C-alpha cells in the first residue's frame, strides 16, 4: 500500500513541481524509466510468486536503470544511440509483457 502511495506521490510531485532535468541526464531518462518499469513488474511478479526479496528488488531496480542508461550512453558514443535505444526498449518491453502475463495469471487465474 505504501509502495503504491509512493508511486502516486512521485507522479503528483513530478507534475506539480516541474523539476528541471539536467541536460546531461535528459537523453537517458526515458530509457531509465522503461527499465525501472521492467524492474517494478518483475518485483510485482516475484511478490505474487511469493519470492519477493526487497534487497533483490532494490538492486535490480538500480542496476536496470544504470545499465539501460549505460547502453544508451555507449550507443550515443558509437553513433548508434537511436538503434540501441530501440533495442533496449524492445527487450524491456518483451520482459514487461512476459511479467505482465504471469501477473495476470495470478490475479485473474487466466
Amino acid at each position, binding site marked *: *500500500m*505504501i*509502495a*503504491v*502511495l*509512493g*508511486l*502516486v*506521490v*512521485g*507522479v*503528483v*510531485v*513530478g*507534475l506539480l513541481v*516541474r*523539476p528541471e*532535468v539536467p541536460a546531461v541526464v*535528459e537523453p537517458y*531518462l*526515458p530509457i*531509465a*524509466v522503461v527499465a*525501472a*518499469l*521492467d*524492474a*517494478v*513488474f*518483475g*518485483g510485482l*511478479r*516475484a*511478490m*505474487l*510468486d*511469493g*519470492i*519477493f*526479496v*526487497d534487497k*533483490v*528488488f*532494490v538492486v*535490480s*531496480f538500480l542496476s*536496470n536503470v544504470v545499465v539501460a542508461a549505460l547502453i544508451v550512453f555507449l550507443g550515443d558514443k558509437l553513433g548508434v544511440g537511436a538503434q540501441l535505444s530501440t533495442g533496449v526498449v524492445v*527487450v524491456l518491453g*518483451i*520482459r514487461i*509483457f*512476459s*511479467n*505482465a*502475463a*504471469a501477473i495476470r*495469471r*495470478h*490475479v485473474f*487465474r487466466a
Partner: protein
Amino acid sequence: MTDEEHPRTPGRGGPLPPEVPTPPPAAAPAPKDPSDGRRRLLAGLWPPRVTRAQLVVALLLFVLGLGLAIQVRSNSDNSALRGARQEDLVRILDELDNRTQRLEDEKQRLDDQRTELENSSDQAEEARKQTLEKERQLGILAGTVAAHGPGITLTVSDPAGAVKADMLLDAIQELRAAGAEAIEVNGVRVVANTYFSGDGGELSVDGRRIRAPYEFEVIGKPQDLEPALNIPGGVVQTLEKEQATAEVTRSEDIVIDALRPAKQPDYARSSSP
C-alpha cells in the same frame, strides 16, 4: 512474445530470465496455486504496514513516478519537433527560413507602400492647406469673406449734395493705388466690378442707394493710405472744394464684414490645369 503459450512451471520466467532471480528452491518454493499470489497481493495492499520492504519499494516507486511524470511532461511540451528526425528538422528549418525571407520581403514592400502613401497624403494635405490659404486671400479680394486689420476710416459728409460718383470712384482708386486691400462703403463691399452711379446726393454703389455721410472702411497700411488721401490736389482737397468735408481716421483694427456672393462665371473658364 510472452510465456503464455508454454506450460507454466514454477519459477520459470518468460523467454528471458525473470527480473528477480529465483532464490534457491528451498528458500521459497513457488506456489502451485495461483490464488496464493492473489492473497499475497491483497495482504500487501491492505492493511498498510510500515515495513522496510514497503518503504524501500515506495522510495523506488516514487523515483519511478517522478521520472515518468517528468518525461511525459517534457515530451508533451514541444512534441512536434522532439521526435523529428534530423532530415525533417533540416527541412523544417529550411521552410522556416524561406518563410521568414518571404515575410521580410512582404514587410519591406508594405513599408515602402506605407511611406509612399504617407508622402502622398502629406503632399495632398499641403496642397489642401495652400488651396485654403489661397481661397482666403482670393476671398478677401472677391469680397466673399470678412476681413479685419489695421486701416483707416474716411468719412465724407456732404451737406450740399455736391459729391458726385466720380469723386467717390477717385477716392477708391486712390485708396487702391495706396495699397488698400479691402474696402467697404456704407455697408457695401467694394470689389473689382463695383461701380458708382448717380450724382448730387443721389448716389448708389452697385445699384444700392447710399446717403451721406459716406463712410469708407479701408484695410491697408494706415501710414500709406492717409497721406495718399491728403496729398495736395488729392481726394480730400477736391472734396473740400465742393463744400464737402472729408475726415480721415486711422484705426488699429478695422472690421469689414459686408460680403459678396461668389459668382460662378458664365463664360470664362480657368485655363490653368
